[in-house]
């Protein structure tokens, strides 16, 4: 898969997300505590844009009346039908083996590495001093 420079890494600080276009596909990139996770910005249910949804946490329970809240910010809910997806895996919380959003490999490369690999830098100006978010699609 070709790699694409999509943004300077500092433009998507922890706790934020951004939608980018890569080869005609929408991709949503999340920064969870400094780690980047990218998903195809298209709900596998009916195609809603996940980047327009509510980012929330995970509630689980072993018995009625018990609410265990964890992983704040690691769940994205589709704006259309509120399906919950795990940002780390792309899996649908309700039926994880049945539906998942395609995950997109993402990493941070230095400007130097971007230049050395000869990656396309036409949409994002690259300088050797900065670091860049690169996705594979």
């Amino acid at each position, binding site marked *: 898969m070709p790699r694409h420079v999509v943004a300077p890494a500092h433009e998507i600080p922890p706790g934020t997300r951004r939608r980018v276009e890569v080869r005609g596909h929408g991709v949503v990139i999340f920064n969870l505590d400094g780690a980047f996770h990218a998903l195809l910005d298209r709900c596998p249910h009916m195609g809603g844009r996940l980047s327009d949804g509510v980012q*929330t946490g995970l*509630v*689980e*329970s*072993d*018995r*009625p*009346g*018990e*609410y*265990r809240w964890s992983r704040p910010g690691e769940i994205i809910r589709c704006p259309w*039908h*509120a*399906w*919950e997806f795990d940002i780390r895996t792309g899996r649908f*919380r*309700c*039926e994880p083996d049945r539906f998942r959003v395609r995950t997109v490999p993402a990493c941070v490369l230095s400007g130097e590495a971007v230049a050395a690999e000869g990656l396309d830098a036409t949409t994002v100006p690259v300088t050797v001093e900065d670091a860049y978010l690169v996705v594979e699609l």
Partner: protein
Amino acid sequence: MTLRVDCDVHPAVPSIAALRPHLDPFWAAHLAERGFDGLESMLFPPSAPTSARADFRDAGGRPPSDAAAVGASVFGRHGVDRAILNPTFPVTMLFNEDMAVALARALNDWIRAEWLDRDPRLRAAIVVPLQSVEAAVAEIERLAADPRFVQVLVPAMMPEPPGQRRWWPIWRACARHRLPLAIHAGSAYRQPPTSIGWPGHLAEEEAAQSQAFQSALASLVTEGVFGAVPDLTVVLVESGVTWLPAFLWRIDKFWRALRPEVPWVDRPPSAIVRERVRLTAQPFDAPDDPATVARILSMVDAPHALLFASDHPHWRFDGDDPVPPGFPADLVRRMLTDNPLSTYPRLREAAAWTA
């Protein structure tokens, strides 16, 4: 031994006087002094055509109220050799808790003495006074030692939705004693029997029953009863059946969106219902076209979900055959034998009891 079971037969209580020998002396005297001679739900007016087919009525024109008459109509049809009595005598309507407890006990003891003791092929549901959770549990405990009681009967419209935690002690008592919870068409009349208000006609109330079954199932699923009471089986009796697929599509859809509200529901509601809920197949609301019926049967997981029932003497089927047109022979065999035996552990245990 292959048992064939009719899972829904209705014994009518002819009068309060019939229950008198089984009533506590105070209540026997008190009800007589009050001239309290009968208790009828507006869903089952004795003379309505739905309450009893005309040719099943007794000499007084009332729904049949003795074991011999009902046995003569029920046994032999489809080779049935067991029948489960579901008394619709509406104890749950009463507002006097003590009276309800007394009448429930008398009803269950009357069923035991006048029906179960008279015909060894009969089984029965325990009617519980929902006016008191504690008393309902006590009534189950009182009768649980008798294996001829095979389930616990409540109306689809209970005083509060059946999933709510206040009811759980009753559901736990059911599970503890291997008694499925039978939810039958009917109401405690704590709220209108349609969700939009009081109906003016019996036809409206009959049609609204399937709404109540849907709401009862939704309550049991969303409140987490099936997880909290893992051994509980629910039987929907006289529900009409064919509303089920549309309801499951709908609740699965809402669960996918609203799961965080009920995080203890960890599987699609349809999967839970398929595993834990059974339905009696009479009445069966469908057109006569067998091809349409076959499609519906596949949607309700009929080979596992459906139980044979005549619904005697109620009359909501058009012909004389309680098996709707389009039911394949293999399904009928499962409905008569396999599914009742897997649904009702006590039918297996009591087989030896009557031999």
